[in-house]
């Protein structure tokens, strides 16, 4: 299997090296694991979403779902087992309406707020334990709709911790208000204020006359550029885009709407355009404990070519996206998107329409890739500007805080 070729070690930082069990979402080709998952979902009354299409053998250990087969067709229509706002969220994730690591976390916390508001403690149960158990099936459901991002994982860890820390003598109403306030505070601190802090640091790095290259649509990088423009820095932007998502179009729209002059190229024109570029700003989906940056597929290519041209690469990432996972390649843990997205219809003809009939053809639609720290010059976080290799230090400090 693809996984047999590589191995992942997940380290705990304050404890000796521990080999934990691999998460099931990277062991899809192991029938025992799949069976265990099916049993767990059955217990939680969540339907199992089946994989779609032929998977390229190197990635056969990952899930591959089709957007045309949503999980909701297996659920009852007035959703009774899963809270309606979670069903709505799952749909929005799987259809791509809510995309982008920050947006997904905010939407997740918003949905959890609704869940907490509608929650009532059953008799003879404690809120601190029962509410966490109530959230577990919802998280499985969301995972089936679209694999959870690192930021969402950290947000869930935070919520679970806050819920378990509710003292047992606390009344239900009080507890609920406290939790809602915690969520609001988390979003305010880790996302909104963090963005403000990062913009402040990043603007120092933008000088007049700069030509900045951005890739895809990172909400944080767009925010920084808009803030810099408002602070009257003179720069122009080159937006690099790639198929099949073509998210750069949305980034282009947002920047041009503010008045920033932009150029738009596809990633194949990268080495053509790089001689003009003075800096590269990249967003991140997660920052791994060994300093690797996990981001949209194509980012590592941009970082590599930029390094070759000696252009500084700056990664902007909030600290809540820092993850204790360690990865050195993009194979072990990734996300496979719907392969049908790669089909394009031009002049009424879709060449790949019957790709499933060709037995030797596989369509691979990767979502993430991993950039080594050698290609990244600086990471701008809300704690300051740090080199890539200092990520474990930040994690250690965060753990100590908590």
């Amino acid at each position, binding site marked *: 299997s693809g996984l047999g070729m590589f191995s992942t070690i997940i380290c705990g930082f304050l404890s000796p090296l521990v080999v934990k069990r691999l998460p099931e979402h990277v062991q899809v080709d192991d029938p025992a694991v799949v069976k265990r998952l099916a049993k767990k979902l059955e217990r939680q009354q969540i339907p199992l979403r089946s994989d779609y299409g032929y998977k390229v053998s190197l990635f056969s250990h990952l899930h591959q779902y089709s957007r045309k087969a*949503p999980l*909701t*067709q297996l*659920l*009852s*229509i*007035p*959703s*009774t087992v899963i*809270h*309606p*706002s979670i*069903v*709505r969220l799952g*749909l*929005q994730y799987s*259809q*791509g*309406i*809510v*995309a*982008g690591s*920050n*947006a*997904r976390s*905010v*939407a997740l*916390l*918003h949905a959890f*707020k*609704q869940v907490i*508001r*509608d929650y009532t403690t059953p008799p003879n149960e404690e809120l601190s334990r029962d509410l966490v158990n109530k959230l577990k099936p919802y998280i499985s459901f969301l995972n089936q709709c679209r694999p959870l991002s690192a930021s969402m994982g950290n947000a869930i860890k935070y919520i679970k911790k806050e819920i378990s820390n509710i003292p047992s003598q606390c009344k239900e109403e009080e507890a609920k208000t406290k939790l809602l306030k915690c969520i609001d505070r988390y*979003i305010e601190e880790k*996302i*909104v204020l963090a963005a403000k802090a990062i913009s402040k640091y990043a603007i120092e790095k933008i000088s007049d006359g700069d030509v900045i290259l951005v890739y*895809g*649509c990172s*909400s944080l990088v767009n925010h920084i550029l808009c803030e810099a423009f408002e602070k009257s820095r003179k720069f122009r932007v080159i937006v690099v885009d790639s198929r099949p998502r073509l*998210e750069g*179009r*949305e*980034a282009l*729209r947002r920047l*041009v*709407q503010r008045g920033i002059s932009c150029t738009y190229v596809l990633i194949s024109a990268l080495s053509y355009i790089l001689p003009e570029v003075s800096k590269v700003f990249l967003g991140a989906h997660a920052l791994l404990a060994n300093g690797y940056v996990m981001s949209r597929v194509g980012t590592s290519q941009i970082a590599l070519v930029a390094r070759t041209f000696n252009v500084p690469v700056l990664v902007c990432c909030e600290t809540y996206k820092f993850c204790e996972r360690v990865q050195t390649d993009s194979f072990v843990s990734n996300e496979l998107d719907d392969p049908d997205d790669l089909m394009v219809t031009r002049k009424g003809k879709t060449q790949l329409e019957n790709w499933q009939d060709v037995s030797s053809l596989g369509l691979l639609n990767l979502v993430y890739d991993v950039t080594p720290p050698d290609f990244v010059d600086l990471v701008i976080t809300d704690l300051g500007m740090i080199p890539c290799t200092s990520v474990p230090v930040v994690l250690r400090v965060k753990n100590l805080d908590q």
Partner: protein
Amino acid sequence: LQMELQAVLMAAGGGSRMMDLTYNTPKPLLPVGNKPLIWYPLNLLERVGFEEVIVITTKEVQKMISTDPKVKLDVKMKLDLVCIQEDADMGTADALRHIQQKVKTDVLVVSCDLITDAALHEVVDLFRAHNATLSMLMSKAHEFTETVPGQKGKKKTGEQRDFVGVDGTGKRLLFMANEADLDEGVVIRKSIMRKHPRMHIKTGLVDAHLYCLKKSVVDFLADNKSISSIRGELVPYLVRKQFSKSTNSPKVIDETHQNLKKNDKIQISSRDEELLHLTQERSCWNDHRGDMSDAYHGGRLRCYVHIMDEGICYRVNTLAAYIEANRLAPKLFDEPAVHPSAVVSERCLIGADSIIGASCQISDKTSIKRSTIGVSTTVREKVKVTNSIIMHGVTIEEGCNIQGSVICSNAVIGRGADIKYCLVGSHSTAREHNSKIAPEKRLTECHRAEVNITYHYKSITYNNCHKVSK
């Protein structure tokens, strides 16, 4: 746990376009494939997982459901029947206003005459994912292939076209108007064209009358008593309102309409508006391309439609649709074609696509092809029934030949009658002055004679019969 959707079934409509059938039997209880018409939408709701339904109907229907043994609804869901006066002339929106107190969450409104195998999750997913105010179901219209008794050819008189405009994805509803409301041509506002330069306008669609509506729309109806029909007035209003200036301003808290009382529920949703706004701001998704606007053009009122390409979707509101539905109904449920309690003699020919109802008596040497025989019907010897619908309690005497006809309940077809493409009304305490009805007594007068009522599209059967009996 928060309830997501409440189902409301509208079963108070009159069936004004098929008076021949409904003057005696209320439309929700007309037999289709030997089940009352109302069973089909109830079964659809039950299959997708609803556990209770609010049924708005007339007292007459309620009485028949509870007393008449032939009307067995066979559903496990809890039915909350709300009766309205028959003569109150209530439109569907009026009915929704009537039950406003019972509506606690978003509603799924279904009409009692809908027969479909549509995947409801497609409609509801649009409603959920886009946080839509309205989501509805439509289907490509299929030509009716069966001949309809008493009608000249297939011409539909008085059916005016519906113009439905959708965007490039085929899901967002941009424009909806009926030919009757348009004076000279289709008028599309510039504001719509600016936001959606590519619009597909479709005319051959059947509206399934299945709507997902936000709770705020029901509250809006309570304050706006002038709207009386969902399809005729509310839906076009909502579709137009998507593009009106007032709904696009951020200070309107509730998306829908004019003057809503700010009650607690709306305040709760507005508390989290910031988070929803933040999510949309940070998400790299847009529903359209090519202009500088945010997703949904910043509009807060959105209407969506799911258009079915394949599958069954009929609204049984005309005689032609009724006949077509009877042909297709057996495909929708898996019960055996011949009811176990029917007494069927061995020497008769029953085609595979015919349905025989409970407690029937089919005698020797009869041939039944592509037909539906109702409950407790007696068919005597040497009868040929082809392509017909025989309702409950009918007696067909020997030697009859019935082709392409509809025989309503409790009628008696005299011996040797030859009925082609006729509609024979049911015995009833109906209006005498309506000469369209062929009352029982007229047929039995001709009972001994060789009654030959052959009918070919030109005159109405009832008149013919009248002549013969004289």
